[in-house]
């Protein structure tokens, strides 16, 4: 088939054929997630649809409506003063909250491909649901053991993951570990079983070193139920984002070798001397791709003259080097405050937002 001549250039969007979309996590198949949803909707029955002002606080007296009405009248008169009159054609996108937090998490999780762990950065939830009550609701879900927060990446961003997904990943490793253990009598079987487990972990770039370390497993002091103990400890809401070695030895009765084993599998990441972040396997794969996607979106916007683009244009092309779809990256940047979303006559526009270079020098 002849390629188009240079004088007849098709726009790049139409030229590339799209393959079938990669398989994604599907929450409809998972019975535990359905049970979670049912429990959550029962708990939220009284609150859904959420009140527009957010949950009432103790400091607001019950006769609020009287004050609110007259204050809004004053507000409208003051906003018509010449300081700032936004033109009605282009205005900030209003956040319509139609789903509960759990439904949003599931919706985001469903769009993630299977090659990366289903982590949901908290900023995506802020972008989707607004800043006001999001943190509260995440804390409530954590207390019920439905989700868990993890610190991911070196910038200190917090991501949320369903506890059932985390349990699945631990159990997968535990299964491979146990089968590797059972088949080992000497180094050959142990190496074979464990190297299989190592290969499953994916292109972290550390497999060659870990293969050597893991093959010596038969000589080390590791209990068979180490992953089960870790599972119960990590899914306990009291554990927190990071743990110290002393906490691990007391609450989980983990030996040094077991801590090293968990570390090599990626469930603990180094924070400080003797302090570890509780983390997710392959979180590095997720985060590096996500960070690349973020920088790509921001650079695409920077290249434009005024730093703005139609959202539809941004969502057309998939991101290079990032498995996460574009609209999730946009949600995350919206929640962080690096971009803002406007409704214009042409459609939704995304604009880069400079938070101010902060002139620290005095003239």
């Amino acid at each position, binding site marked *: 088939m002849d390629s188009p001549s240079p004088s007849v250039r098709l726009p790049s969007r139409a030229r590339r054929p799209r393959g079938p979309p990669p398989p994604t996590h599907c929450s409809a198949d998972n019975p535990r997630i359905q049970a979670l949803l049912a429990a959550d909707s029962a708990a939220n029955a009284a609150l859904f649809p959420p009140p527009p*002002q*957010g949950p009432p*606080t103790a*400091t*607001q*007296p*019950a*006769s609020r409506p*009287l*004050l609110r009405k*007259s*204050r809004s009248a*004053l*507000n409208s008169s*003051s906003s018509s*003063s010449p*300081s700032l009159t936004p033109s009605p054609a282009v205005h900030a996108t209003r956040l319509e909250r139609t789903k509960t937090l759990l439904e949003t998490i599931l919706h985001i999780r469903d769009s993630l491909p299977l090659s990366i762990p289903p982590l949901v950065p908290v900023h995506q939830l*802020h972008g989707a649901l607004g*800043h*006001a009550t*999001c*943190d*509260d609701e995440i*804390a*409530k879900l*954590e*207390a019920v053991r439905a989700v868990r927060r993890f610190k991911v990446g070196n910038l*200190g961003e917090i991501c949320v993951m369903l506890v059932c997904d985390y349990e699945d990943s631990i159990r997968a490793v535990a299964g491979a570990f146990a089968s590797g253990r059972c088949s080992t009598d000497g180094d050959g079987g142990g190496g074979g079983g464990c190297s299989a487990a190592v290969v499953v972990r994916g292109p972290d770039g550390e497999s060659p070193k870990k293969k050597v370390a893991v093959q010596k497993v038969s000589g080390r002091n590791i209990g068979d139920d180490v992953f089960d103990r870790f599972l119960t400890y990590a899914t306990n*809401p*009291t*554990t*927190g*984002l*990071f743990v*110290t070695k*002393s*906490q691990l030895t007391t609450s989980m009765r983990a030996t040094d070798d077991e801590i090293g084993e968990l570390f090599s599998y990626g469930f603990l990441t180094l924070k*400080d001397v003797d*302090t570890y972040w509780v983390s997710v396997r392959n979180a590095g794969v997720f985060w590096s791709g996500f960070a690349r996607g973020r920088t790509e979106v921001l650079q695409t916007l920077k290249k434009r003259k005024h730093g703005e683009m139609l959202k539809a244009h941004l969502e057309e092309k998939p991101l290079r080097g990032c498995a996460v779809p574009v609209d999730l990256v946009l949600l995350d940047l919206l*929640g*962080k*405050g*690096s971009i803002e979303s406007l409704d214009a006559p042409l459609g939704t526009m995304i604009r880069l937002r400079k*938070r*101010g270079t*902060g*002139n*620290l*020098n*005095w*003239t």
Partner: protein
Amino acid sequence: MFARLLKFRETRPSAPSIPLHHSTAAFLSLRLRRNLTFEESGPVNALQIDPLDARYLLAACADSSVRLYDLEEEARLGRDEEDEAAAVDWLCRPIALLDRGRRGHEYSVTGCQWFPTDNGLFTTSSMDGTVKVWDTNTMEVHIGADSCACVFEIEQHVYDHAISPIAQSHNLIATGTEDQNVRLCDMRTGAFTHSMRGHRAPVLVVKWSPRDEYLLVSGSVDHTVRLWDVRKANACVGSLDQYNSAGSTHVSTEETVTAHTGPVNGLAFTSDGLKLVTTGHDQTPRLWDMPTLHNSLANYGPHIRNKARFALHPVITPLDACSPPLLFHPSDSRQTVVLDLFTGAEVMRLKKHTARVACAALRGGATQDVFSGGYDRQICWWTPEDPDT
């Protein structure tokens, strides 16, 4: 029937108070005062209006000067009829100026505080390592009872200092210094009392609680906010933990607890002392419940930019003047962001400065004026919109 009326009076939800409603509406309609500008001062680090008369404004500037303004100068000196018709801009000049030098401070002045019960005294702290107590009338360093000049030589950069607004039994100045201690200076004797050890990095901001005269809170570059009881030997009463909220059962160890993921450089109490707002370089202000030290997970959104290693002074409107209370947070993005304290919603932004806004101050009394000072050498006066104009 009488019993029924009495029961109704006692059990009905509290009626809205009309003065509270009006002052809240006034706060929500703040705008820049048009016919008055302050003369160009140095880059302002701190502002304070005296709590007694709500009349005098002290500005501590980064060019080592301290300026004193009279806010009622306009009323005092009067305006002629022709001036009013011509709508001349009134230039507010300082009534007193402490310049750079041996008499004043030699480096940037980082804080200024009025003495809580007397207009005649104020204190200033500076990066040249001194905290000086001044006599307002003579603008000289105050000579104490037994003629001790009240200059406290700390020999470290002093980032912030504070005097307790309710103290009856002590006259201590708490100073936050470069060398990780919070040092207490006693104004009665002119000497240091003790220092409170515990921080591992320079202390950027200190504040006394308006509820307990012995409770002191300090924020530091090591990401922690510590509470101190100045009466105790082992003074540290607690440390705020950002992962410790009301529902969570998370337990952090003593060494690893942090209040922010960056240096903490701003503290503000509500007027009843039950809530504390801390803000830091991670650009998320947090609201803490004081008696329980829980992080009430109020999310203030991504509107603030805060990257300077100086004390920032966010202010909260008094609870009897504005309900729901507002948080005025100066930001490096040349504006003061006004946020609802409990819900975290952005109420408005006060934009006038052309450089970083470093401080905000409320004028007490019956007015709802807010002042903001920035590094563009300007002080802006925000006043409620006049309903007639």
